[in-house]
């Protein structure tokens, strides 16, 4: 028994010692964060994704590499055709010591519009806009390549972003000639209308060869108005964001498709939000897809910055006699280091 106590004391003390050493050594470990999204869905038509699901888990690692570079790696665990897949969502290195410009190498979400740059846990609604899902695919426009971005010396915020990528998006690019690359560019502007209000206007474009060795062109435009009062901004805020997306894909499935999405988000208390979204896909008359209109309503309760519960209701009109209705309830949490979200 005595030996047991001695052993216990020894164990506890080494544990404490180990912890101290570890915490000092930790400053060289990457920051680790995990976001988990649980989803329960119920549709009156397409029931294939109904029921309770682990929607996605995102594992995020980030750290400065040395005095010149910083690196970020984000892996997503999500269900694909019945089983869980583990995929690199973003893995890239950026410069930190260069003035005026940031260079990036790696795989990342392309700055084509505003929504395409968001991770699933940061989506304003539980699912992506119809235009993003249909035109860019489930994973969005996510490419491997090199990129550069810089602030244009103007009195307001004006950022130019250019990427030179391999172009691997299955539908849009994916040319079998590896010498064919895809280019993505974005110009983003933001004005402070007052201390409480900003207006953001962005234009994006992309170009590359598709699997038919013909051109695919993408165009995006987005407009965002945000209001958060300087006094009392903890309890009230408002956002109106709209985005337009268009693809023009030459080739066998010759297809021009465009869509628009617009949402309102109102914060009514410190932890409560109400939101509404309208989607319209097929502004032009597409040969392959019927026009789809969708209304989405959402109520969010965020106990803290690190957890959220959201209830969403959608009605989808895709030309059939009866609209599809879908209810989704999502619970999301974030543990570990969580880098701040972009404005």
């Amino acid at each position, binding site marked *: 028994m005595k030996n047991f106590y001695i052993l216990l004391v020894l164990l506890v003390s080494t544990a404490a010692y180990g912890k101290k050493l570890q915490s000092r050594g930790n400053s060289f470990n990457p920051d680790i964060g995990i976001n988990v999204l649980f989803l329960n869905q119920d549709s009156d038509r397409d029931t294939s994704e109904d029921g309770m699901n682990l929607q996605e888990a995102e594992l995020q690692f980030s750290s400065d590499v040395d005095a010149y570079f910083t690196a970020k790696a984000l892996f997503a665990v999500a269900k694909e055709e019945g089983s869980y897949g583990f995929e690199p969502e973003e893995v890239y290195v950026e410069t*930190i*010591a*260069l*003035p*005026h*410009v*940031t260079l990036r190498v790696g795989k990342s979400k392309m700055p084509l519009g505003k929504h395409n740059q968001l991770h699933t846990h940061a989506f304003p609604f539980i699912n992506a806009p119809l235009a993003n899902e249909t035109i860019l695919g489930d994973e969005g426009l996510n490419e491997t390549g090199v990129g550069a971005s*810089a*602030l244009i010396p103007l009195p*307001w*915020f004006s*950022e130019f972003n250019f990427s030179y990528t391999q172009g691997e998006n299955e539908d849009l690019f994916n040319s079998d000639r590896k010498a064919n690359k895809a280019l993505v560019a974005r110009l*983003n502007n*933001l*004005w*402070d209308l007052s*201390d409480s209000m*900003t207006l*953001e206007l962005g234009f994006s474009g992309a170009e590359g060869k598709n699997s038919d060795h013909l051109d695919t062109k993408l165009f995006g435009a987005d407009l965002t108005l945000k209001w*958060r009062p*300087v*006094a*009392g*901004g*903890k*309890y009230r805020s408002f956002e109106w964001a709209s985005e337009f997306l268009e693809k023009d894909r030459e080739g066998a499935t010759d297809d021009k498709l465009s869509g628009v999405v617009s949402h309102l988000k109102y914060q009514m208390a*410190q*932890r409560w939000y109400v939101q509404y979204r309208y989607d319209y896909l097929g502004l032009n008359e597409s040969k392959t897809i019927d026009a789809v209109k969708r209304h989405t309503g959402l109520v969010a309760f965020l106990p*803290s*910055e*690190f957890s959220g519960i959201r209830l969403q209701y959608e009605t989808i009109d895709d030309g059939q006699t009866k609209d599809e209705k879908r209810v989704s309830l999502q619970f999301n949490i974030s*543990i570990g280091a969580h*880098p*701040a979200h*972009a*404005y």
Partner: protein
Amino acid sequence: MRKNIKLFVVIFFCLLPIYSHAKLKVLTTTNNLKSLVELIAGDKVDVESFSKGTQDPHYIEAKPSYMVKASRADLLVSIGLELEVGWLPLILRGSRNPRLREGEEGHFIAGNLIETLEKPTATFSRADGDVHPEGNPHFLLDPLNAIKIAEKLKFKLAKLDPENTSVYEKNFKKFTSDLTLRVKQWKKRIKVGTKVITYHKTLTYFYHRFGIINIALLEPKPGVPPSARHILGVMKKAKTEGVKLAIVENYFDPTVANRVAKDVIGLKVKVVPVSVNGEPKILNLFDLYESLITSVEE
């Protein structure tokens, strides 16, 4: 035409350094730091603060327009102690101004110079709310801490702008003697042992300096909104301790404090600014300390 463009580009880049050698451009994360810079540097620098006086500095949005300001700044003065962890890194990244990175000459972190209060000694997790592992970041509300930081700030300004060293030195001396004198006067106005309740742990350093005792916080944990059960506990404590004053920092909602005051006889609620420009008439740190003293004195 081609030649003209080339010439234009060359001229543009030649002009850039001239443009950047004008007055020292200083950015601060809070208005209290801005006031401190103004008191030491006078009109020798241009200074601007990211957060406004009525905003909670924990939750500032990383507006892209701030990146533009940071891209043109020579010096960034921040609080540190993880106060700005949710937004400042994004601004610095977007600014593409490596001079302002942590550890570089253009970034002055005031929190590193302070012996902080309320540094957690036991292990903690996010279940304890927004705990600052390096201690409470609201240290500028103790006037003597402002002097400590001003001294180091004076050296930093002199290093970046040696021409005006004597001005910074002179202003610092005046600031120190004025503030020391005022602190003596303020101490006479506050009865040591005055009991208060507060919304958030913002005034810890102020209370510590003037011998004010904080009996309870309206927040059950830092950053966690008050629950009904917690409020009942606060009411009970306020009654047994005979607290006469509840202080609510003006970026928080005073509803809960008013609710407590309804139940606790003789308890007065005061909504106070805790930052310069938190109210229009508070123009500098002296005004801020004066207004806090006035709120607490009987």
